[in-house]
């Protein structure tokens, strides 16, 4: 039987180096009982997928802060499908587009790309932890 803790992959996508939120999310999810595979910043889609496969993670948490989210994030769901990760939970958060924008539209854009949850700038970890617990329990997994 594998390690009892739920594994999640965490990282900041693309050419993005914003590390502070990443470190806090790492800390918060670890404290909440997850095993966090934290890839840090400057993570490619490939690295996300590989890490999830290797560790049998239940969710990938992608952050994009620096504005290039639109270019960096599309296609990740397809890659997951191709890699056999199927409907693995994909969460996305940060400052996803260039500029101050209406979040409803931003959210729709990224949901359409296949992300399960899309979070507004400045979201606090507690909200995400609750959501993850919920989504996992729907899939019969206890966090």
């Amino acid at each position, binding site marked *: 039987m594998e390690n009892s803790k739920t594994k999640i992959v965490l990282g*900041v996508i*693309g*050419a*993005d*180096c*914003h*590390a*502070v939120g*990443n*470190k*806090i999310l790492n*800390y918060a999810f670890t404290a909440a009982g997850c095993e966090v595979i934290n890839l*840090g*910043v*400057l993570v490619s889609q490939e690295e996300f997928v590989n890490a999830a496969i290797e560790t049998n993670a239940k969710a990938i948490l992608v952050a994009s802060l*620096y*504005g*290039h989210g*639109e*270019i960096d994030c599309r296609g990740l769901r397809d890659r997951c499908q191709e890699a056999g990760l199927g409907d693995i939970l994909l969460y996305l958060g940060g*400052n996803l*587009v*260039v*500029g*101050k*924008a209406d979040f409803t539209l931003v959210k729709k854009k990224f949901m359409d790309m296949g992300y399960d949850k899309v979070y507004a*700038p*400045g979201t606090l970890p507690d909200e995400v932890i609750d959501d993850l617990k919920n989504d996992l329990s729907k899939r019969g997994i206890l966090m």
Partner: protein
Amino acid sequence: MDLKNKKWTTDAFNTTQKEVLNQWPTGAEVDFEEAVKYHKQIPASKQFAKKMVQAKKDGVTLAQPRAGVALIHEHIELLNFLVKEGGADLLPTTIDSYTRQNRYKECQVGIDESLAAGRSLLNGFPAVNHGVKGVRQVVEQVNGPVQARHGTPDARLLAEIMLAGGFTSYEGGGISYNIPYAKDVSLERSIYDWQYVDRLVGIYAEHGVEINREPFGPLTGTLVPPSVSHAVGIIEGILAAEQGVKNITLGYGQCGNLVQDIAAIKSLEVLAEEYLEKCGYKDCVLTTVFHQWMGGFPQDEAQAFGVISWGAAAAALSGATKVIVKTPHEALGIPTKEANAAGIRATKQVLNMLCDQKYAMNKELEDEIAIIKAETRCILDKVFELGHGDYAVGAVRAFEAGVIDVPFAPSKYALNKMLPARDNNGAVRLFAIGNLPFSQDIIDFHKDKIEERARVEGRQASFQMVIDDIYAISKGRMVGRPK
């Protein structure tokens, strides 16, 4: 690559230059002799170094925004708007993040999509892709001195193109544009590559073209203690001076406590002069830059104006030569030009209201200056020791050993054992000293300060306190007190 703090030979430089200019087709546009001629016809009013020196002489604080978009004409329009509607004294050209990682192909995608979408999909100006000709359009059509601002570990090609393009100031450094901006670029590598940039600036200087250089002071922008950023800035200053750079602006990111902020700027210039002098670089002109709060901002624009204005006030009272301005959109996204101009106007209102006021010396400020100086000396002297008298070698070893440590840095070349937290008055102190080579009395000083706060808050100092401090300003406070 044999890293030493030693001026590069002409041979070494020339050999590398060939490679560098081959990294992307636009490299071929660079013609040094012609570029020198080009610089010589740039009017004084558009020369960054001259404007900084004049401001220092006049004792005023200039305002400079950050700004950059994907397309040339939009970028020109943006900068001119910031002069006209914002009253910017100095102009930036913020480079996009793909360029910063030398991913010029992705830049091209960004440029093309921006053209298609009619809005910038890049978070900055992709200068390498636009090439020397594109850059010169900016220099020529913009009304003020322009500086490249980026965050590029390997900024050699970018420097070649922007300087040949007529830029008169270039931000960055081998440490400050690596540790906060990269994950696995070795320090040895980035310092070496930045020696190239500094040498290039030195060669321009030897040809009578004065280019201002500015190490990036704020590092990760998040609770970085002054002595840490001072140590990095001074080392980068020394490395630049060795390569022949003559006009240097050293930076500091606002921590938020007024006394600490003023002490930081006051000690920075004095310390830098002392160390440059000691190293034998006697003809550098030093100026300072104060960055308005660089960490997480409040989302509300009115609150953001409060943070911006307080930054402007601290900049003015500290006597910094220039201030880098934030915008009311900071927490949410790259600002519109209107929001950017608004940030500058709020800033200039405060700068102008305070330009005739000084913050008088007092015991508290003296003490704070003394502690910053003592800490910075501990670090710098240990770096010198580790490098056996060579600051380049010493810097690499110092990061390995955690003798210099930058909180929350993404780079694996930072040890990340030191942790900052605010004291009871909001000054940034150390909650975990890590391996910083501080004397026992300094270590005790920090311990006392953090304990004082913990006592007031009725809790133990812990990582939770650090997290609370990270969020505090964005939630409308400075010290992250428990509820």
